[in-house]
C-alpha cells in the first residue's frame, strides 16, 4: 500500500493557510493563560494534599466537599477521570499554615467518615510548598537546558539557522500544548512536564528528518529555486512523516484511552504535542528556514552557499 505516491503539494506556497490556524491556537492559548493567570499547576508544583478515595457506590461529591471544606481551605473534589466508572473521587486541599503534614491524612479521613461509611483511601500525597517551588525551578531549568542542548546539537550537525528554526518550531509545540491545557482547564503536573520534554525531543526528531532531506537535495538541485527544493523534500518525506506520527499517535492514544486516570494528563499532552509537532516541522520550521535563506540571498544578492557536507549520491 502507498498513501502518498509521488505527491507534489505546494506546501510552502500555501503556507499561510496552515500557519493561520496555528496562530489562532497560539493566541487562544495565550489569552487563556493571561485570563487565568498562568498555567494551572498541580500540587506537584504548588504544594498541597490530594487523596484518591474509592467509594462504595456513586460518590456524594457535594457533601464530601462541604465536609472537607469545614476543616481545610482550598478544597476541590472532582470525580477521578476513568472510563470504567469506578466511583473514585480526588479530594485535594491546600496545606494548613500550621501543623504537621502527617496529620492531614487523618483530618481528611475524619471529614470523609462523616459523609460515608464505606470507602478506601487508595492514594494519598502531600507535597510541602518548598518541594513544589523546587520542582517548578527544576522544570524550567530542564526545559531551557533541553532546548539549548538541541540547538547546539543541530548547530553542530547542520547550521545554526537550521537549529534556530527547529527550536522555534519546538517552542511553538510546547506553547500550544500548555495553551490547550489551559483552555481545557487541565492541570500541569510533574508527569505532564515529563511528557512536554519528551515532545521537545519528538518535535526535533520530526523536524530533523525533513531538514536532513532538504540538505541532501540542495546538493543535487543545481539552480533550482530553494522553495522548489524544499517543497520536493517535504513531499518526499511526507509518507514517512504521516506514517510515523500516525503510529506514535496511535500508541499515545492507547495510553490516553486505556492508561488509567493517573496517566491522563501525561497522555493528553502527548496526543496534543505529537499532532502539533508533526504539523510544525512542515509548516513552521520549513517556512522559517526558507524565509531566512531568502532574506540572506536578497541582502547579499548572491546564491546561498551550500552547506559543506560530503555528497551522498543522487536521488532519482
Amino acid at each position, binding site marked *: 500500500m502507498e498513501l502518498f505516491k509521488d505527491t507534489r503539494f505546494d506546501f510552502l506556497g500555501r503556507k499561510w493557510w496552515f500557519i493561520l490556524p496555528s496562530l489562532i491556537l497560539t493566541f487562544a492559548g495565550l489569552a487563556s493563560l493571561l485570563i487565568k493567570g498562568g498555567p494551572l499547576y498541580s500540587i506537584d508544583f504548588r504544594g498541597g494534599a490530594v487523596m484518591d478515595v474509592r467509594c462504595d457506590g456513586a460518590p456524594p461529591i457535594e457533601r464530601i466537599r462541604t465536609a472537607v471544606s469545614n476543616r481545610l481551605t482550598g478544597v476541590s473534589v472532582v470525580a477521578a477521570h476513568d472510563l470504567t466508572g469506578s466511583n473514585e473521587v480526588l479530594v485535594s486541599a491546600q496545606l494548613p499554615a500550621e501543623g*504537621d503534614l502527617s496529620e492531614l491524612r487523618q483530618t481528611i479521613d475524619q471529614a470523609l467518615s462523616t459523609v460515608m461509611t464505606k470507602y478506601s483511601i487508595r492514594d494519598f500525597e502531600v507535597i*510541602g510548598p518548598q518541594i513544589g517551588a523546587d*520542582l517548578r525551578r527544576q522544570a524550567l*531549568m530542564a526545559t531551557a537546558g533541553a532546548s539549548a542542548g538541541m540547538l547546539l546539537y543541530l548547530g553542530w550537525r547542520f547550521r545554526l539557522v537550521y537549529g534556530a528554526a527547529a527550536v522555534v518550531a519546538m517552542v511553538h509545540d510546547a506553547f500550544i500544548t500548555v495553551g490547550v491545557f489551559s483552555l481545557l482547564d487541565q492541570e500541569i503536573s510533574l508527569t505532564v512536564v515529563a511528557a512536554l520534554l*519528551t515532545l521537545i525531543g519528538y518535535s*526535533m526528531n520530526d523536524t530533523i528528518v525533513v531538514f536532513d532531506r532538504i540538505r541532501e537535495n540542495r546538493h543535487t538541485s543545481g539552480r533550482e529555486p530553494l522553495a522548489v527544493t524544499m517543497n520536493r523534500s517535504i513531499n518526499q518525506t511526507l509518507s514517512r512523516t504521516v506514517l510515523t506520527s500516525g503510529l506514535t499517535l496511535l500508541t499515545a492514544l492507547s495510553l490516553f484511552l486505556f*492508561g488509567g486516570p493517573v496517566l491522563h494528563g501525561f497522555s493528553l499532552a502527548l496526543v496534543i504535542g505529537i499532532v502539533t509537532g508533526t504539523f510544525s516541522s512542515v509548516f513552521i520550521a520549513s517556512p522559517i528556514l526558507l524565509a531566512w535563506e531568502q532574506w540572506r540571498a536578497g541582502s547579499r544578492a548572491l546564491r546561498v552557499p551550500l552547506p559543506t557536507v560530503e555528497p551522498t549520491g543522487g536521488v532519482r
Partner: protein
Amino acid sequence: MNRTLIRKTLFILALVAASAFAIVRRPIRLGLDLRGGASLILRVKVDDSASPEQRRDVVEQTRQVLERRINAYGLAEAPVQPYGSRGNELLVQLPGVHDPSRIQSIVQSRAVLEWYAVEEGPYATRADAMAQHGGILPYDRKLLATRPAADGRQSWYVARSRPVVRGTDLRDARVAADSMGQPVTTFSLSQDAAARFEQYTRANIGRRAAIVLDQEILSVPVIEDAIRDSGQIRGARNLEEAQDLAVNLRSGALPAAIEIVQTRTVEASLGADSIRHGVQAGAAGLAAVVAVMLLYYRWAGANATLALLLNGVLLIAALACFGAVLTLPGIAGVVLTIGMAVDSNVLIFERIREELRGGKSTGAALAAGFSKAFDTLVDTHVTTVVSCAFLFLFGTPAVKGFAATLVIGLLTNLFTSVFVSRVAFDWELSSRRRGTELSIGLAR
C-alpha cells in the same frame, strides 16, 4: 548459504537467549506506585549555626540511623537516599507500608531514651507544678510530662535537669514479656553508663526515677534494688509498639529532629490497577501499530514487527540488568517506545521504497536504504536522548524511571531496526530465487 548471515543470526539468537535468562533471573523491581507503599521526603532540622561540615555529618548520621531502623523493620531493599540540592533532605521509600502512624514512628521518633531522678510529683497540671515553686523552677530542675493516656490526661513531675542515663548509653534493646504477660522493651547499657547507673541506683533505693523517651515520661518506677546494666520499659500499648521502640532504640537515636516535607502512600490495589491499565494500553498500542505496519508494508511489516518484539525483550532485559525500578510513567515510556521505535523502521523502509522506485535492484536498494537512513536515525535518536537527559534533573523516581526506560528503549531500537531488520531482509532475499521482488508493499 551465506556464512556471515548465519553468524549474525546466531549472534541475535544468543542475545535473545541471554535476555530471556536475565529477565528470568532478575525480575524487574516494581516502583512504589505499582506495588503500593509509602514514599517520603524528609528534611533534617539542623541548627542554622552549624558549619557546613557539621550539617553534612548530621544529615549523614540521620540517614544511617534511618537506614538501620528500616532494615530492622525487615524492609531491607529500601535504602535511604540523599535528595535534592539543598543537602538536608532524604528520600525514604517503604514498600508495603501503609499505616501512617507506623510510618511516623519509624521516621519521626527520635528515640532518645533517658533516665531522670524524680524530685516531686505527680501534679495534675503544669500550673500546679509551677505553683509549688512560686512560678519559677530552680535552675537544676526540669518539668516533665507523661505520655498522654487514651483520654488525653497527663501528669507532671519535677525532676533533676541532668539525666542519669542518656540515649547514647544504650547497647541493646529487645522485646520480652513481663510477669503479667504484657510486652515490655528491655535494654542494656554500655559499660561506663552501667557503672554510673549502678552507683546512682544504689544511692537512691526507695526513690523514684523517670524513664523518658523523647521528652515524654513512659513510666515512673520506684528503685527497688541496685541495677547494673539492664532495665525494662513498660507502658507499650501493644506488642507492635514495644517492638518498634526496641528497633528504634537499637538503631540509635536520631541526631536531629525530622520534618516530613512530602509523603505519598499508595494502596497496593491501585498499583495493580495501574499495571493492568498499562498492560492494556501497551497491548492496544502494539496491536494497532502491528496492524498498520502489516497492511502498509506487507512482509516487510512482519520484519518490523519482529524488530519491535525483539526491542521489547531487549528493553526489559536491560531494565532488569541495570536494576532499574519500573514505575507507572516507566510503563508509559515502554508503550511510547513501541510507537517511536517503529519510526526507525518506517524511515528505512520508505528509503528502500524510494531507491526501488528509482530503479535500483533489490539488493542495492536495501543497502542504500539502510545506509542513507542511518545518519538520520542517529540524529533523531540523539535529540530524544538529550531531552531525556534533562529529565534526570528531577530527582523524583517516577520521572527518572520514565526517562531511563525511554533512553534504553531507543538504544536497543537502534540495534533492532538497523541490525536485526537487515538480517531478516537478507534471509528473505537469500531464501528466494534471484530477481524476485522484495515484499515491501510497493506496487510496480
